[in-house]
């Protein structure tokens, strides 16, 4: 079972890495959106520092939402999913691997580049560390929840902005706790409570979301 898991993840990561377009565009989108804000709000460092958590988090959230649109799409179109459904590998396992590999290829680059954006927005060291920690705890939740919506509409031809409309309300708790953690960090308050709540949300989603996603995928494929 564990071997299957690694093979699936490895396979997915390889496929994504060979299409640089698919993982580079969310990253560029993220950087561009963050850079738009100083241009729109003026270069005053104090204002930028104050709203930096919100900017970075909203941009990351949007970039991840964009990338999630086709997490299952190719597998369905190429018949890979049908093979998985026929094989003895449980669908939940496939979903789990897909989300993990999606997180590694699409979210990890965002997290790695976020300290750089933090520098652009004048974050100090504690704030940078908090930013990375909240992103590490929060982005898996975004991927797991987004996968549910993405699976539901996998066969819909004209998706447009349906996925963001469907999923964005569910992202609100993660957004709230992450940005509050960063605000607390800038006020030198203790942070463990925020991390504990984010971690709890992450674990809760990690347990339930793959089952819901595989149920959604079964529904979504049959249209």
């Amino acid at each position: 079972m564990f071997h299957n898991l690694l093979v699936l993840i490895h396979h997915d990561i390889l496929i994504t890495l060979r299409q640089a377009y698919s993982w580079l565009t969310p990253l560029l989108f993220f950087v561009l959106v963050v850079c738009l804000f100083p241009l729109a709000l003026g270069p005053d460092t104090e204002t930028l520092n104050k709203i930096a958590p919100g900017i970075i988090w909203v941009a990351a959230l949007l970039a991840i939402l964009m990338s999630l649109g086709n997490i299952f799409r190719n597998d369905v179109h190429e018949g890979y999913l049908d093979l998985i459904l026929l094989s003895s590998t449980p669908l939940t396992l496939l979903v789990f691997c897909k989300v993990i590999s999606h997180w590694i290829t699409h979210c990890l680059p965002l997290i790695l580049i976020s300290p750089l954006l933090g520098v652009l927005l004048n974050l100090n060291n504690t704030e940078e560390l908090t930013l990375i920690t909240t992103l590490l705890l929060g982005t898996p939740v975004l991927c797991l929840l987004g996968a549910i919506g993405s699976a539901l509409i996998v066969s819909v031809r004209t998706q447009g902005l349906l996925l963001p409309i469907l999923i964005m309300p569910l992202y609100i708790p993660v957004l709230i706790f992450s940005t509050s953690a960063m605000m607390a960090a800038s006020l030198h308050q203790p942070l463990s409570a925020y991390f504990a709540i984010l971690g709890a949300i992450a674990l809760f989603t990690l347990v339930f979301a793959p089952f819901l996603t595989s149920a959604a995928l079964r529904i979504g494929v049959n249209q």
Partner: protein
Amino acid sequence: MWHWLNQKFLAPKSFYANSAKLIPWIALAFALCFSYGLFAGLFIAPADYQQGDGFRIIYVHVPSAFTAMAIYFSMAVFAVFTLVFRVKVAAIGMSCSAKIGAWFTFLALITGSIWGKPMWGTWWIWDARLTSVLILLFLYFGFIALQSVIPNQQTRDRAGALMAIVGVINLPIIHYSVIWWNTLHQGPTLSKFAKPSIAPAMLYPLLAMIAAFLLFYALTLLLRMRNQILLREINSQWVAELIHE
């Protein structure tokens, strides 16, 4: 037992027949509650010592907010019946509820902001409860959008059901995170307007109005569901016979 229940009440045909008998009673109960609640709320209940007659909008605002929440939970119950027991009528009830629920949520927001203007001095405040009702509206929109893009009837029902369940699991988390967020940013605004426990003369009309709104939901839901049943079963024998009568 289950089979009997299914045959007797939950099959679209028998549901259509039975709901016709139910509708006049619901309409009557609604008319009684609504007329008592409206009259007592607007004329009998004393004016609030702080807000004057302005508080009377509570008789529309609170019932619509309560009903909006209740409809989302009823959608989740319908969703379970759709996914687990594959009851056709439940799926119809679920998708018909969504639009009614969205309208009640909209009504709650509008009356809330009309109430906020004289009391808080602004149309909108990022108050925890208003914000979570706004998010509820977005959840309704998401559900309606999802159902409107899926062409296949059965898939539409089941996808909607799954989405409703995911939404209802998340709703408490969202609600409490919003409350927490609000107290972090602007706690005092809320406690200034913390409700004093309500006097009985004000409370009974309010309860009557809540009952009236719930009955109104049941009434419109049944009417919409009957419509939808006819639409979905348009090719069946009994609908053809019904039309010929």
